């Protein structure tokens, strides 16, 4: 019975192959619009970056990115990301653990506050730290008295970067942990595991893909952040310039090919990030599917 209906349905579909598709001109127009939009706003700029970077030949390109100032910027950027990303992972896991596994007053306030860095403009994020740690700031005089430099120095850049990338890990983990519930943790506890063992052996393996995903996004933002870092850095060449700030300086000096050469490094970072993100999504997707089978 069901078979015969299915057969008839295919017969009908064959008789009118285009019954459910748009007329040709509409299809061409829609596809064309989408593709030209994509080309104009995504592909073309990418191409321009590399075209400008290699305009004066590969030698000039290598020169530009091996300048001591450029190398210093690369080093600082890597250092900032290496400090900010792990800090955020620790905060993110702690916050989402508390939010997903426990009930307490003010939970919704906490969830909202975690999103704050996404809501405010990056410039404001930078200003916050200048107001806190700057020479006229709240803790500034005390820091000056103890000869500690935060603003216009590395620590300020790291602090600001931690602030702007704060939500990445937590955003990723809260829904994941809420969906997983705490039954597996309860099972581990009932089998005699300590809290720490439960975390290391049960919780962490279950969130590893989400955590990695959050780390990749946080890393991309940490390396690419401009506005907030610009406010606290002080633009000291070879000392407090990160890659994006270095690009700006070169550009403002009309040193276009050098600016684009350094910028191409950031574009490469973006491409690597996208590929890594895709791999993690694919990996965790297949594991999520397995997990879903488990809960049934």
């Amino acid at each position, binding site marked *: 019975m069901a078979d015969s209906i299915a057969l008839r349905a295919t017969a009908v579909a064959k008789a009118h192959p285009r019954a459910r598709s748009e007329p040709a001109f509409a299809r061409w127009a829609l596809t064309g619009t989408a593709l030209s939009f994509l080309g104009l706003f995504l592909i073309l700029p990418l191409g321009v970056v590399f075209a400008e970077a290699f305009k004066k030949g590969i030698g000039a390109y290598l020169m530009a990115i091996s300048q001591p100032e450029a190398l210093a910027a690369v080093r600082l950027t890597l250092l900032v990301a290496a400090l900010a990303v792990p800090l955020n992972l620790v905060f993110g896991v702690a916050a989402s653990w508390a939010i997903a596994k426990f009930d307490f007053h003010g939970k919704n306030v906490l969830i909202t506050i975690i999103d704050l860095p996404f809501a405010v403009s990056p410039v404001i994020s930078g200003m916050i730290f200048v107001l806190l740690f700057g020479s006229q700031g709240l803790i500034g005089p005390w820091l000056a008295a103890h000869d500690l430099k935060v603003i216009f120095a590395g620590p300020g850049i790291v602090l600001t970067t931690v602030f702007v990338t704060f939500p990445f890990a937590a955003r990723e983990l809260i829904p994941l942990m809420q969906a997983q519930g705490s039954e597996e943790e309860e099972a*581990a506890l009932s*089998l*005699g595991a300590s809290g720490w063992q439960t975390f290391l052996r049960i919780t962490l393996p279950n969130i590893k893909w989400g955590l990695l995903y959050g780390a990749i996004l946080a890393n991309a933002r940490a390396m690419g952040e401009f506005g907030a870092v610009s406010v606290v850095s002080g633009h000291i060449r070879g000392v407090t310039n990160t890659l994006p700030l270095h690009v700006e300086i070169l550009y403002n000096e009309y040193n276009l090919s050098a600016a684009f050469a350094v910028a191409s490094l950031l574009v490469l970072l973006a491409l690597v990030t996208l590929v890594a993100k895709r791999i993690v999504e694919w990996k965790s997707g297949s594991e999520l599917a397995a997990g879903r089978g488990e809960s049934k």
Partner: protein
Amino acid sequence: MSIEIRNISKTFGSFVALRDVSLSVPAGELVALLGPSGSGKTTLLRIIAGLEVADSGSVLFDGQDSTVRRIGDRQVGFVFQHYALFRHMTVFENVAFGLRVRPRHERPSKAEIERRVQELLELVHLGSLAKRYPSQLSGGQRQRIALARALAVEPKVLLLDEPFGSLDAKVRQELRRWLRQLHDELQITGIFVTHDQEEALEVADQVVVMNEGQVEQVGTPEEVYDQPATPFTYNFLGSVNLFRGRVHEGRVQMGAIEMFAPEHIEVRHSVAVGYVRPHEMAVERQNGGESTIEATVRYLHAVGPTVRLELERSDGGDLIEAHLSKERYRELDLKIGETVFVKPQNLRVFVPDNYQI
């Protein structure tokens, strides 16, 4: 290990899950906590396990107060409703978990762990699946792995939350029998939660009927089924016919039914409700005299060993359910639309506390 629960109360926000529950479970028995959803049975089980903390009252294991003891130190094995297997570990690692997390000086050697796990997997008849992941198992297999994992730590008490709740009927039957056998082999105290009365009556030594956070009745399956202590137990365990009427100094009057209920000798002019199980209704073709109700056969269901009759009372049109044996049914040779006379054989009368049900 024997378990004693004294005056446990628990609320979640404004919802009262348990009110002043006391219960004692002798060592080695298999007890069912039976009740509808929201009756507090799972909460009670979780409090015994140490997964939940009671607002007041205490839990005693072998006479020792264990109310504040950590779950890991209670020597209980807990089997979760949805199994809660560790999804990133193989079946073998799941079962071995409880042994691997022990402090170093208590931890068995690698070879010993391997031997014990294999032994447990044989016990649950799944020795060949050690390398699989939970997602590759069927529901019944997962349930048995969850049980093997709980048994690995050699618990003194086994607690099971709706152990067969999410399995299909056939597997459920098998596992029920198997759990009973396993319990008899291991001689371990067991408590399981269920909302399925058939399951509780078939598997358990003792049935604890719960309703709205309170224990309605505790007894053997025969006791709770044949002598329900409350209207709730009557209703919850199997189908039942209701008769409404009045009682005064023990004399019960319910339409055509008149009888004497000595337990209500002190009740004066009160509303009363009578309960009769369908198989305790005698069906006759001739009027049997006193306390007989005239009714018409409305529906006949003759599949299986018992025949179910749906009868409509001639006075008032209320429906009565009666169960007959196949032989009796043939003897009477009933057809739909015929008139019969029914007589309740075992009527239990309850006087509602608040004059309404």
